[in-house]
C-alpha cells in the first residue's frame, strides 16, 4: 500500500488532501454528503474575533471555468465557533486547522491565543490574503514586512503548525514565502484567489457589489501551478498547493511542482465528495505506478530549469 501521510511539526495528516477555508464551512454542514475522516485535514471558514456580516449581495458570479466571490469574510466569530462548532470537530478523526482572518495584528494574536488552548484545533492557517475586505486581508498580504511581522508574532504564541496563506496578487510570491519561512512559519499555502471582475452588459453594472473579487476554480489552476513552482524554488518549508484542483491528476501536478499537500476549494461546491475522491485517486494512481510513498512525487518535476523563465525572477 502506498504511504499517503505527511507531517507538519507533531501533527500527522493521514493523506495529502485538505479542504480549503471557506469551502467546507465549519465541518458539520457536509457530514451527510462526504466522510470528512477520509481527508488529510479540514480547514475552517476564516474566523475573526467578532462575527462579521460580510459584504452586501452580489457576492458570487460564475465565470468561464471558475467563479468570482466577494463574501467579505462573513463568519460567526471565534467565540461562537468554540462553543457551537468545536464539539463536533472534536469527534472527527482528521486534522482540524483553524483559519484566522483579522483586521489588525493584535486581532490575529487574540484569535490564535484563544484557539491555541483548544485541543481540537490542531494547527492554524493565517489568511493574510483575502481580496474582499477593506482592512486587513490583502493590505497585509501584499506587504512583505507586514506578512513577516504577523508570522513572527504568531509564532511566539503557538507550538502548533502555523501555515501562512499567500496571495498570488503580488509580483514575486517567492519573496513572501521566503519572508514567512524566515519568520518561523511551518508551511505556506497558496494560492488564495486571483483578483478578477465580471460585468453585466445589460445593466452596465459589475456583477459583484464590491466591483472586483476573488477568482477561483479550474480557471486559475495554471496560475496556481506557476506560483507554487516559484515558491518551491525558493523555500525549504512545505508548500500546500491550492487553485482549481478538480481531480487526482490535478493534485499530483501540484505535488510535482513542489507542493507537499493540496487543498480542494471551489470543487467542494460542485461535488461535495470531490476531496475524498481525489485523496483516493492519488493513492490509486501511485499504486498503479508502483510508487510506495506520495512523497516521491513532491518536487519531482522533470523540467529543464535552464529554460525556465522563472529563473529571471528569482
Amino acid at each position, binding site marked *: 500500500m502506498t504511504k499517503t501521510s505527511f507531517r507538519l511539526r507533531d501533527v500527522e495528516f493521514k493523506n495529502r488532501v485538505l479542504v480549503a477555508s471557506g*469551502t467546507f464551512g465549519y465541518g458539520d454542514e457536509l457530514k451527510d454528503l462526504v466522510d470528512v475522516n477520509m481527508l488529510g485535514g479540514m480547514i475552517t471558514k476564516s474566523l475573526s474575533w467578532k462575527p462579521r456580516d460580510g459584504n452586501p449581495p452580489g457576492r*458570487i458570479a*460564475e465565470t468561464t471555468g471558475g*467563479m468570482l*466571490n466577494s463574501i467579505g469574510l462573513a463568519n460567526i466569530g471565534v467565540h461562537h465557533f468554540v462553543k457551537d462548532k468545536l464539539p463536533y470537530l472534536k469527534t472527527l478523526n482528521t486534522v482540524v486547522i483553524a483559519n484566522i482572518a483579522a483586521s489588525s495584528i493584535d486581532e490575529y494574536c487574540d484569535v490564535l491565543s484563544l484557539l491555541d488552548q483548544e485541543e481540537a484545533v490542531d494547527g492554524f492557517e493565517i489568511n493574510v490574503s483575502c481580496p474582499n475586505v477593506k482592512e486587513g486581508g490583502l493590505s497585509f498580504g501584499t506587504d512583505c514586512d507586514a506578512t513577516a511581522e504577523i508570522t513572527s508574532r504568531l509564532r511566539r504564541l503557538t507550538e502548533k503548525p502555523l501555515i501562512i496563506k499567500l496571495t498570488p496578487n503580488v509580483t514575486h510570491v517567492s519573496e513572501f514565502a521566503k519572508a514567512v519561512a524566515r519568520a518561523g512559519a511551518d508551511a505556506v499555502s497558496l494560492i488564495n484567489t486571483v483578483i478578477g471582475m465580471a460585468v453585466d452588459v445589460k445593466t452596465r453594472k459589475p456583477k459583484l457589489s464590491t466591483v472586483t473579487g476573488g477568482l477561483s476554480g479550474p480557471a486559475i489552476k495554471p496560475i496556481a501551478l506557476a506560483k507554487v513552482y516559484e515558491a518551491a524554488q525558493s523555500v525549504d518549508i512545505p508548500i500546500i498547493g491550492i487553485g482549481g484542483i478538480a481531480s487526482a491528476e490535478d493534485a499530483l501536478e501540484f505535488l510535482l511542482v513542489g507542493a507537499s499537500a493540496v487543498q480542494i476549494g471551489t470543487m467542494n461546491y460542485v461535488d461535495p465528495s470531490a476531496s475524498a475522491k481525489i485523496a483516493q485517486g492519488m493513492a490509486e494512481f501511485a499504486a498503479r505506478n508502483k510508487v510506495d510513498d506520495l512523497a516521491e512525487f513532491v518536487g519531482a518535476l522533470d523540467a529543464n530549469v535552464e529554460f525556465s523563465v522563472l529563473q529571471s525572477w528569482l
Partner: protein
Amino acid sequence: MVQEIATVTGRNEVADGVYVVRFSSAYISRTSLPGQFVNVRVGKGFLPLLRRPFSVCRTQDDEAEIVFNIVGEGTRILSEKEPGEKIDVLGPLGTPFGYERGFDTALMVAGGLGVAPFPLLTQKIRNQVERIETFVGAATGRKLWTEHLENVHAATDDGTKGFRGTVVAQLAEFLTSKKVHHPKIFGCGPTRMLRALSDLAKRHEIACDLSLEGDMACGMGICQGCPVERVNDTKKYSLVCTDGPTFDNREIVLQA
C-alpha cells in the same frame, strides 16, 4: 439531503421556451416540501462549473419535476436532456413555505417561472385548506404554464391571455372585489414583482411568504454567497439557500 446521479425520465416544452424535466429519485420525491429546491449539476465538465438551483415543482411516486426557461448554458444543456440521460441532483435544500397552518385560503402568486414551487404546494395543501386561488403572470400568453394548479387567474403584459397587466395588479383587483376568508399569500417571481406583492400584502394585512432567488455556489450555507438583508435584526443578513429561499415578507428587505 442526498446527492444522487438521477436518471431523466421525461422532458417537455410545456409552453414557449418553458421546459419541464422529470427525474427519478425516490428520496427527493418523497421528502421534498413545498418551496424547497434541488441544486443540479447538468454535466461533468466545467462549463458551466456550478450547480443550478431549481424549486421542486411537483413530485409523483419516485419522480420529481423541475421547470425552467433557458437563461444560460446550464439551462440550455438541461433543456436538451433526453430520457435515460443522467443529472447530478443534490437536495432537497432550503426552508419550505410556512404552509402547515394559520390560513384557510391560499393565494398563490407567480411571476413568470415563479410558478415553479406552486404545483407541489397545491399538491400538499389541497385537502387541508378551504380554497386555493392561483395568479400566474407572464409576458405573453404563449409563455404561460398553468398545469397542476387550482383556480387559475392568468395575467399577461400584452393581454393575449387573461388580465392585461401584472399579476400583482390582478391580485389587487381580486382582493377589492372578492371576500377572501383568512388568507395567506405565497409569492414567487422576479424581485420587482415580489416587492409590489409584499407591499400589497402589507396594505391588506395578509400574511405573505415569498420565495427568493439568489446567486449561490453551494446551496447549503457554506459559500455564504446568497445574502438577503434582514429588517432591523441583530443579524444583518440571512442566506437565501438555508434560511430561505422562502421568507416571511416582513423579515427581509427586497433590493431594487
